[in-house]
């Protein structure tokens, strides 16, 4: 193979450092291939060691001022530079990367180069800020879903991976700050500094990038495993569970209940009537029991279902967080509080149809239940008494 791949040792927004790194690579006989510069990896061709100059020129499409070049002019500029011996190596972020054999400069007058770079930096900052606003909006909208997904999926590794994944957002902020500083310098007439020393923080960036890549990979794998066909890794149907659960199930409360759900319900909620028992010491939950039952006579939709979700977690803080998450659901679904006892934390309420919604936490265990009077078979009273029996059954 005449090809070599290398991890880029500097942040992708620090184009001056990348220019310098590419020059050093060429001096070692590694010449960047056309379109070979990716976000993380650069692809080189092994060849004769030589002096090369690499320069990032702001791409015309991001320039919005009167310097803006239309499509015809953009191509004309490219032709112009190629005629002068500069080879176009492809687009990288908002720049076009050119190279020239030997020492050369694309720009020889900082007064001409500065407005172009200033405009490019400003356009890039605006784009980054727009992205950040979107990220904040998306996170705020999906925060609850993400938090419960993280906890339900969860292991300590996944939580750490998520932290690193979030750090990707901070690299966007760092890019904005860097661009703002460089554009301010340009505005003051300080020339753009090409070929900056790339070795200064290269170890840190390389390690950070590797860790972040692995973390994002783990986070994706864990989420994928959690959302798998069977409702997540290690889940089995409740009817296949050999162990006798240490709490009252829906069937204990209502012997006539059947584990029967509509097809659409199973399709959209693959965790229904599944149980997962982890023996993995890194997992934050040891036992998740998610059960919904409907009767033949019921209408087979959520409002007619009865469910119990039981979490036995490894850490108390996870249990507390789960309680908080489900407490919001209880308060949203029912408004008349009822008094129950026998747990560290309890929130329970009845809605206007007489359904009891409750969540309680006993140490590392959290249980969320919705006891539906419509589900109760004849002679079975699905009232606060049943809720209290459920609380007392958990040890």
């Amino acid at each position, binding site marked *: 193979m005449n090809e070599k791949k290398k991890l880029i040792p500097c942040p992708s927004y620090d184009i001056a450092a990348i220019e310098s790194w590419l020059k050093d690579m060429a001096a070692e006989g590694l010449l960047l291939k056309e379109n070979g510069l990716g976000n993380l990896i650069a692809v080189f061709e092994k060849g004769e060691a030589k002096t090369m100059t690499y320069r990032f020129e702001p791409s015309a499409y991001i320039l919005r001022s009167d310097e803006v*070049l239309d499509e015809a002019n953009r191509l004309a500029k490219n032709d*112009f530079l190629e*005629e002068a011996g500069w080879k176009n190596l492809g687009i990288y972020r908002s720049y076009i990367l050119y190279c020239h054999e030997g020492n050369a400069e*694309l720009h020889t007058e900082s007064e001409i180069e500065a407005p172009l770079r200033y405009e490019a930096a400003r356009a890039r900052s605006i784009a980054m800020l727009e992205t950040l606003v979107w990220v904040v909006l998306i996170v705020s909208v999906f925060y609850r879903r993400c938090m419960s997904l993280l906890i339900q999926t969860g292991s300590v590794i996944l939580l750490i991976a998520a932290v690193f994944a979030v750090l990707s957002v901070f690299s966007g902020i760092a890019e904005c700050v860097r661009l703002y500083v460089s554009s301010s310098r340009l505005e003051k*007439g300080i020339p753009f500094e090409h070929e900056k020393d790339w070795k200064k923080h290269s170890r840190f960036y390389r390690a950070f990038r590797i860790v972040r890549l692995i973390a994002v990979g783990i986070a994706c794998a864990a989420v994928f495993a959690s959302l798998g066909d069977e409702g997540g890794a290690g889940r089995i149907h409740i009817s296949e569970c050999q162990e006798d659960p240490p709490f009252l199930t829906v069937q204990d409360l209502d012997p006539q209940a059947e584990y029967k759900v509509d097809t659409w319900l199973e399709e959209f909620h693959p965790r229904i009537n599944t149980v997962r028992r982890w023996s993995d010491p890194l997992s934050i939950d040891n036992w998740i029991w998610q059960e919904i039952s409907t009767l033949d006579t019921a209408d087979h939709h959520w409002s007619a279902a009865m469910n119990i979700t039981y979490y036995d977690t490894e850490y108390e803080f996870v249990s507390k967080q789960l309680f908080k998450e489900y407490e919001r659901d209880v308060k949203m679904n029912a408004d008349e509080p009822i008094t129950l006892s026998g747990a560290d934390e309890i929130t329970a309420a009845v809605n206007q149809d007489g359904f009891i919604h409750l969540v309680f936490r006993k140490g590392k265990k959290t249980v969320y239940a919705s006891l539906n009077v419509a589900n109760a078979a004849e002679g079975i009273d699905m009232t606060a008494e049943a809720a209290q029996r459920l609380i007392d059954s958990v040890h």
Partner: protein
Amino acid sequence: MPRKSMQILTDSMFYILMALSVKELCGQDITDVIASLTDRRIEIGPATLYTLLSKFLKEGMIEEVSVQGRKRTYRITEYGLEVYQAEKERLAMCLKDAERIADYERKKEADSLSFI
């Protein structure tokens, strides 16, 4: 701050107009003419040259004469020539001032002595 108007030309601007004031030239020829005229003291990078040519075209100081493949040839306009001449005169006056500064100092010294 970068200069925004074309009233005072930068070195590169002045030399590009200078080269085009003699004859029609393409981009590469402009670079070569300037480099050889100034013994490579003034070298213009292609991106700088292209940006300046675009500005000159927009301001009506030069015009495109022909396009042959990648090669575009430019010619200076009447207005471009006026700007070039004005800048040449301005620079000539600067040079004249520089030459007169020694006489000025001498005269000033003599005036102060005569006052005593």
